[in-house]
C-alpha cells in the first residue's frame, strides 16, 4: 500500500512538475526560488502522502504549490532571485520584441496583488474554470471573477503605454 502510494506520488511529480514550476514562477516572480517553492509544497504533501488520493493529483499539487507560493510571499523578508540573463549576441527582431514584451508584462504582473496574480495565472496559464480556481484559492466564484477582472484591468493600465506604442507600429 505504502509502496503503491509512493509510486503514484513519483508518477504525479513527473507528470505535473513542468506546469507546477511555471505556476510558481508566475506567482513568486523574482521574490523567491520557484524550484524551492515547488519542492517544499510537494514534500509537504509527501510527508502525509497516505491521506491523499494520488490517482488524480493535479488539483492537489496545484493547490499546494499556489498556497506555498502565497505563504512565501507573505513572509516579511525575501531574497530577490537574480533574473537569468539570456546570452548576448544578435537577436532576431521578433525575438527581441517578444523579449521586451515579456519583460514589460512580467514587471506588471509582479506588481499585482498576490491573489489577483494567482487567479490570473490559473485562469490564463492553466486554463482552469472559475470554479476550479475558486477551489484552488479557497475563495468564492464571484470573488475569483472579480480578482481576475481587476487583475486584467490593472495590467492593461500598467501596460497601456506599451500597447499604444505597439499599435502605432
Amino acid at each position, binding site marked *: 500500500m505504502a509502496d503503491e502510494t509512493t509510486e503514484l506520488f513519483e508518477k504525479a*511529480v513527473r507528470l505535473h512538475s513542468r506546469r507546477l*514550476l511555471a505556476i510558481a*514562477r508566475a506567482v513568486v516572480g523574482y521574490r523567491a526560488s520557484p524550484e524551492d517553492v515547488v519542492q517544499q509544497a510537494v514534500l509537504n504533501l509527501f510527508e502525509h502522502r497516505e491521506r491523499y488520493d494520488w490517482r488524480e493529483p493535479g488539483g492537489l499539487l496545484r493547490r499546494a504549490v499556489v498556497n506555498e507560493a502565497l505563504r512565501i510571499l507573505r513572509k516579511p523578508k525575501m531574497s530577490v532571485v537574480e533574473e537569468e540573463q539570456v546570452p548576448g549576441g544578435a537577436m532576431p527582431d521578433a525575438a527581441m520584441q517578444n523579449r521586451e514584451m515579456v519583460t514589460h508584462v512580467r514587471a506588471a504582473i509582479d506588481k499585482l496583488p498576490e491573489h489577483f496574480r494567482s487567479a490570473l495565472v490559473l485562469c490564463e496559464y492553466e486554463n482552469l474554470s472559475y470554479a476550479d480556481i475558486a477551489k484552488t484559492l479557497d475563495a468564492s466564484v464571484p470573488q475569483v471573477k472579480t480578482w481576475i*477582472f481587476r487583475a486584467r484591468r490593472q*495590467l*492593461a493600465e500598467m501596460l497601456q503605454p506599451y500597447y499604444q506604442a505597439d499599435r502605432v507600429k
Partner: protein
Amino acid sequence: MYPVADHDLELLEAYLDDALSDQELSALRDRLAVEPSLMAALRMLRDERSSRQVFFQSIDPTPAEVDELVFDIRHAAERKRWWQDHRRLTRWASAVAACLVMGVAGAFVYHSWDKTPLRKNGETPLANVNPTNTVSAPTRYAVEVTDDAGNVMAVQHFDNESEANDFRRDLRLMQQRHRQANHTMTIMNNEF
C-alpha cells in the same frame, strides 16, 4: 480607454475565458454582429491576452529544468521517507534508554536512602547503638547493654549520636576491665 462599459468588458472577458452559458453566448454574438465598439473592445482584449500569453510561454520551464526539479524532489522524498521509517525505531530506542536511565537513577536513590549513619558503627557484641525514629520527635539513639550470651539487659536512650557512642565506648572499656580482672583472679587461684 475602452469603447465599452465595464460590465461589457466583463462579459467579453468571460467570453474569451469560455465561461458563458449557451444563452449568454448567443446573445453576445448577436450584439457583436451589430455593435462595432463591442467588436473593437474584443479585439483589444484579445491583443492584451496574446501579450500575456507570450509571457506565460516564457515561464514554461525547459525539459532539463524539469528533470533537475524531479531529481531534487525524488532525492528529498527519499531522505524524508528514510527518516520517517527510522523515526519509529528511534522512538523505541529512546524509550528503552529513558527506562534504563530511570531504573539506574531509582536504584541509586533507593540505596542512598537505605544507608543510615549509625548502622555501620553501632554494632558491638556487648553494646548496640540503634536510631529510633518517630514522626514528630527528633531522632533518638538507643544503646543496648547485653550480657556475654547476647541477651539485652537494659537499653539507654540518647538524644544524639556522639553521646550514645561515648556511652558505648565507656561501657565497653568497663566490661573489658571487668573481664581482665576475672581472668587475673583465675590465674592467681591456680597458683595457690
